[in-house]
């Protein structure tokens, strides 16, 4: 029982991103910061145990969980049926809109316009799975190991467009890069969930309880204001 172990060891190990602004990035002191990191802190605080942050990438966060290197994955994890077979998901804790982004001079309005273009995604991220499903066959999808790769590929012009989260694109723009990823169209509204191993009902219940409480008492709203610059959407 994972919850019991956490309570016994007085430490919870949580996987967070460090290449995915604003959910997880590093400051100039190389410490993780962001929405997911604050969420992790909140959970640890409510569990009343110490927090151990484990930086992961989109590609390896699931194996981290499966091999018990972490207890929870708070890494802007999207939910789909295939994944739900392998791990369990909590209630949603953050809003997330996947979209295709690109520089102003690239004319793309919807999926059809992607024809012949090269789109960068982070391998294994929800936008990878979704885009793969909807993109016309002549779209070249380049799948990078982590968001670092995806963002670098976009900024260095190795891909025309990227598929990523709206807030991610906003965070990049805020840093005033040489090339600005503007929204072309949204792929999917896929809020983020906390991932945990199957057959851990106690831990799942506890996490859900904490999320519900945080929604109610406004602490989640505060996190949202801080990192996304908006209140939580009501339907979350």
């Amino acid at each position, binding site marked *: 029982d994972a919850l019991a172990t956490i309570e016994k060891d007085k430490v919870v190990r949580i996987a967070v991103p460090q290449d995915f602004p604003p959910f997880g990035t590093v400051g100039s002191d190389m410490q993780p910061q962001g929405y997911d990191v604050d969420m992790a802190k909140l959970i640890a605080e409510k569990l009343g145990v110490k927090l151990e942050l484990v930086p992961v990438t*989109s*590609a*390896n966060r*699931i*194996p981290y969980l*499966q091999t018990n290197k972490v207890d929870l994955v708070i890494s802007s994890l999207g939910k789909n049926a*295939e*994944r739900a077979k*392998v*791990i369990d998901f909590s209630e949603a804790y953050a809003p997330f809109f996947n979209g295709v982004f690109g520089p102003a001079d690239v004319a793309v309005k919807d999926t059809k316009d992607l024809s012949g273009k090269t789109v*960068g995604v982070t*391998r*294994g991220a929800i936008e*990878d*799975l979704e885009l793969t499903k909807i993109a016309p066959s002549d779209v070249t999808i*380049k*799948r*990078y*190991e982590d968001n670092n*790769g995806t963002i*670098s*590929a976009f900024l*260095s*012009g*190795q891909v025309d467009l990227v598929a990523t989260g709206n807030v991610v694109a906003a965070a990049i723009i805020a840093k005033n890069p040489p090339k600005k990823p503007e929204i072309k169209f949204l792929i999917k509204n896929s809020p983020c969930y906390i991932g945990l191993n199957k057959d851990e009902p106690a831990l799942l219940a506890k996490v859900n309880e904490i999320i519900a409480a945080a929604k109610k008492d406004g602490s989640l709203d505060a996190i949202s204001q801080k990192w996304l610059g908006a209140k939580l959407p009501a339907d979350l």
Partner: protein
Amino acid sequence: MHYTFDFGWLLEYWPVLLKGIGITVELTLVGGVLGVSLGVACAWARALGPGWLRPIVTAYVEMIRNTPFLIQLFFIFFGLPALGIRMNELEAANLAMVINLGAYGCEIIRAGIQATPKGQFEAGASLGMSRIQTFWHVILIPALQRIWPALSSQIVIVMLGSAAVSQIAAEDLTFAANFIQSRTFRAFEAYFVTTLIYLALAVLLRQLLRGVGWTIFPRRGAASRAR
């Protein structure tokens, strides 16, 4: 251990693996041929070339041999576009492998050239051949023959090192493993299968290189045939 192995995904994903193998093989062949050619040119420059060329080649060789392949790859793919030099991931991967093997090959082949008896140069010269002609027709093949095992090992090492090109989204065998892993969450199985494939490729490549040696160095073949 509460984990149960599942290789069922192989049924669905074998085309991905196959494509990955194809790219890895392509990278290895192109990288091998061009890399050895570059290595020969650099070895010539360092051992016999004009004085002004040597420090340039030396700097190149030292730079490559003392930095990780992964960083060279990132530099070419992510860094060079800042200078307006852009290439796609396969070109970048190929280029990185060529310059990498070129640098190591240079040192290995140079050792082979330097082990050439002085008399070979003199025999070439006394027959009226120019320095380049002597190098090309007289020195090179025996020099390569001398170091062929070392060069073969280096080519195998470069093939295995090509696993890193998945980092720039080149869809090689490692990319295939990562891709499958991200879709099926069967990380261990995907990497295990891929590792076995790499092992087989390495064994095959070594055989292939031995075969190449047999054909381009006829002396050994003829001598043992006679024996």
